[in-house]
């Protein structure tokens, strides 16, 4: 005979499963937005800092963009639109940009946003961020015209200026001048911005809490993305760092969390089977690539980099790395198909065309004679090491002598900075918004890519007005062709993220490349 306790537990289980299956008991759907409540978010990592100017990390960005805002930002179509800026004018020679601020803007500390704050913020961004450093190579000076207007004088035409000011990677956000002066080039600890949420507290290892900004001055346009109309419906957003993906999933299915970030793709069938959960498949997420050491070792020879490209079979690599086909896509683009302004299919005749004979011929032509190549990967990201498990035998199949090395992510980051320690490492690239901002095109980023051809093409791109779409399309095709000819990185494929939210509690949520919680409300 079963014990009464066991019988009670079983009865509980049956009752709960019946409740979960009964559609009539589900919480109300989206409906009218509701003010109040707390949005609970289970994140996969805790940021090193929330100062968005200081860090390129995703963990920083998805908290920080609720707090901070820049002059410009991406809309839902990944195009740059004004945010704190009212608008801008360009002089006929393209060398002077006059940017007007919106009226009535205030920081979270109550101070008005002035041109002085903007000038100080942009100058700091120009020193801290790699995109900012590139942009400031073209800038002669940033100066205040009056309290609500600044001017940016360029030394040469630089069409991506506004795009770079709206780049969400290490963004050019505006902070009070006093905060800039206090923090210098160190990550700021006083987190004062203009966004719809105010930084409230950060208990390391436990939670980051943001509170609604009652004085937020919103735009009115329905632009989506990171700009346009933003309404902070929830009183608070609480971010919880939950490293175990199974625990994140359990938490969102029980309603302890409203949304769980970056779940493993193999949980997708379970998500689909639960009517209270909605899977958000993030298509503009990341693409994976094989990064070559172009400063030291065998891959200084372009022909051997091409040989790797022909030795790889992207479909096998993506299947091993990511799993279900729902979550990956073979595409030659440096940008994602959704980024219509910069997307190109140039190089499609080379990408995903495995040709082992051609690979061997290129190796022979380059005089490769069995030098050992070191392939670094990490187990901290499952897809990364899984990719290496397939890549290594594929390279060995054409005759490369390969030594795989597996490290934790901080160690890999440290080793990849040293030119004599590696030949290949695997990494993922989050979306860029302009070719001048593609990280591996920089000569100082690990891989140390230097190309006169590319520099000339990027220079042309920079001097071509954004309005000349046909010329930009042609240039983008040329840039991507160079990418497939010189192969600084061998692209493997696009992979999609899986975010899951509890649809009985979280409403108004829209998919984007990272999660945002303005215009989103909870019914707890």
């Amino acid at each position, binding site marked *: 005979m079963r014990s009464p306790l066991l019988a009670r537990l079983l009865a509980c289980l049956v009752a709960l499963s019946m409740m979960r299956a009964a559609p009539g008991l589900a919480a109300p759907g989206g409906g009218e937005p509701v003010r109040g409540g707390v949005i609970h978010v289970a994140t996969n990592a805790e940021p090193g800092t929330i100062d968005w100017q200081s*860090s390129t990390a995703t963990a920083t960005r998805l908290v920080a963009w609720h707090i901070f805002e820049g002059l410009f930002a991406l809309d839902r179509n990944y195009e740059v639109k004004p945010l704190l800026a009212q608008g801008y004018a360009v002089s006929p020679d393209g060398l002077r940009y006059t940017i007007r601020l919106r009226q009535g803007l205030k920081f979270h500390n109550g101070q008005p946003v002035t041109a002085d704050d903007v000038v100080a913020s942009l100058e700091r961004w120009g020193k801290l961020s790699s995109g900012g450093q590139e942009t400031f190579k073209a800038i002669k000076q940033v100066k205040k015209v009056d309290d609500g207007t600044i001017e940016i004088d360029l030394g040469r035409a630089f069409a991506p200026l506004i795009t770079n000011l709206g780049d969400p990677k290490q963004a050019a956000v505006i902070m009070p001048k006093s905060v800039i002066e206090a923090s210098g080039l160190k990550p700021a600890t006083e987190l004062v911005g203009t966004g719809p949420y105010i930084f409230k507290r950060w208990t390391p*290892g436990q939670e980051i809490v943001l509170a609604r900004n009652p004085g937020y001055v919103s735009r009115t346009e329905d632009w989506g993305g990171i700009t346009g109309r933003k309404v902070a419906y929830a009183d608070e957003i609480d971010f919880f760092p939950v490293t175990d993906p199974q625990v994140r999933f359990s938490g969102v299915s029980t309603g302890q969390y409203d949304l769980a970030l970056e779940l493993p793709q193999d949980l997708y069938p379970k998500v689909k089977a639960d009517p209270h959960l909605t899977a958000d498949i993030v298509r503009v997420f990341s693409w994976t690539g094989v990064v070559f050491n172009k400063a030291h070792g065998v891959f200084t020879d372009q022909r051997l980099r091409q040989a790797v490209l022909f030795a790889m079979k992207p479909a096998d690599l993506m299947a091993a790395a990511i799993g279900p086909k729902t979550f990956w896509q073979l595409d030659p683009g440096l940008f994602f198909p959704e980024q219509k302004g910069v997307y190109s299919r140039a190089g499609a005749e080379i990408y995903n065309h495995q040709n082992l004979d051609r690979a061997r011929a290129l190796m022979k032509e380059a005089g490769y004679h069995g030098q050992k190549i070191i392939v670094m990967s990490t187990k901290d990201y499952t897809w990364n090491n899984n990719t290496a498990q397939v890549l290594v035998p594929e390279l060995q199949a054409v005759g490369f002598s390969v030594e795989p090395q597996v490290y934790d992510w901080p160690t890999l980051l440290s080793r990849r900075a040293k030119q004599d320690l590696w030949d290949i490492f695997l990494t993922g690239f989050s979306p860029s918004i302009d070719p001048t901002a593609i990280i591996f095109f920089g000569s100082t980023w690990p891989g140390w890519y230097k190309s006169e051809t590319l520099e000339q093409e990027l220079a042309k791109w920079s001097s071509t007005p954004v309005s000349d779409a046909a010329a930009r399309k042609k240039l983008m095709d040329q840039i991507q062709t160079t990418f497939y000819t010189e192969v600084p990185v061998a692209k493997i494929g696009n992979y999609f993220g899986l975010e899951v939210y509890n649809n009985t509690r979280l409403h108004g949520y829209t998919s984007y490349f990272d999660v945002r919680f303005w215009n989103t409300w909870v019914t707890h």
Partner: protein
Amino acid sequence: MARYVAGRLAALVPVVLVVGVTVFLLIHLIPGDPAQVILGPDASAAQVAQLRHALGLDRPIYVQLVLWFERVLRGDLGNSIFLRRPVAQAIGEHLGPTAGLTALAEALALAVAIPSGVLAAWKQHSRFDQAFMLFVLLGVSIPSFWTGLNLIAAFAVSIRLFPVAGYVSPARGIGPWLGSLALPAVALAFTQAGLIARMARDSTIDVLAEDYVRTARSKGLDEAAVLARHAVRNALIPTLTVVGTSLANLLSGAVVVETVFVLPGIGNLVVQSISRRDYPVIEGVVLFVALVYVVLNLLVDLLYAALDPRIQYG
């Protein structure tokens, strides 16, 4: 006794010295860079170098070691690179959840292990003893993270008795606090209970075979009195050694359990700090844990004397 305790406490100085220098060198010699972690994977070499300089990480390692040790001797463990607060304060803030978790886990483990171990010894070779041995085997074999994930699936997802993860401070109510620690404490206690119960059973079996137990039985004492008055107290001395070391082991077990259940304790702090290469925190936590080990061992030695009058120090 006082001289013995003073001598043991004085032995802390070389322990701190050896542990401190070893940990400092180990973590600085393994690759990894807090500046790179703060700046993110897309940061340029120049940005990383700039921040390394600002954080003082570009100084020679021996200079950093001397500066750190000078501060430690003054009782200052330095400042966390990420948390932007003194290491001692960070340890203090993370101590509460770990102390609560280990105390609960130890209490649970003892409450289950001692009575069942004694009972299994008394009923040696019975069905109960066989079931007990299976329990012990599972306890010491199953890793605590796996136990933890299964407890979550059963008691947080299927039967929603407890939260999936997270910590509630006792300031917000004893009930919610116990609720947040219940599953992690059970996961942690399972392994400890196995170890302690096995020792309690074996030492009780040994004691039950002693002459004085036979004498007690022959003079007509009932079994309960024999067990309670004569067997258990003597069997507890070797068990106490295991309890002492298991308390220290709980700290290392807490590293895994705190990570699974997202408890902001010392274990979670050290895991986060290692992945971020937050050198001052790693050094401070390891020194702190070394001190806890030494003090716990001293307390166990002193308890021997309290339990067994034949043992005397000094």
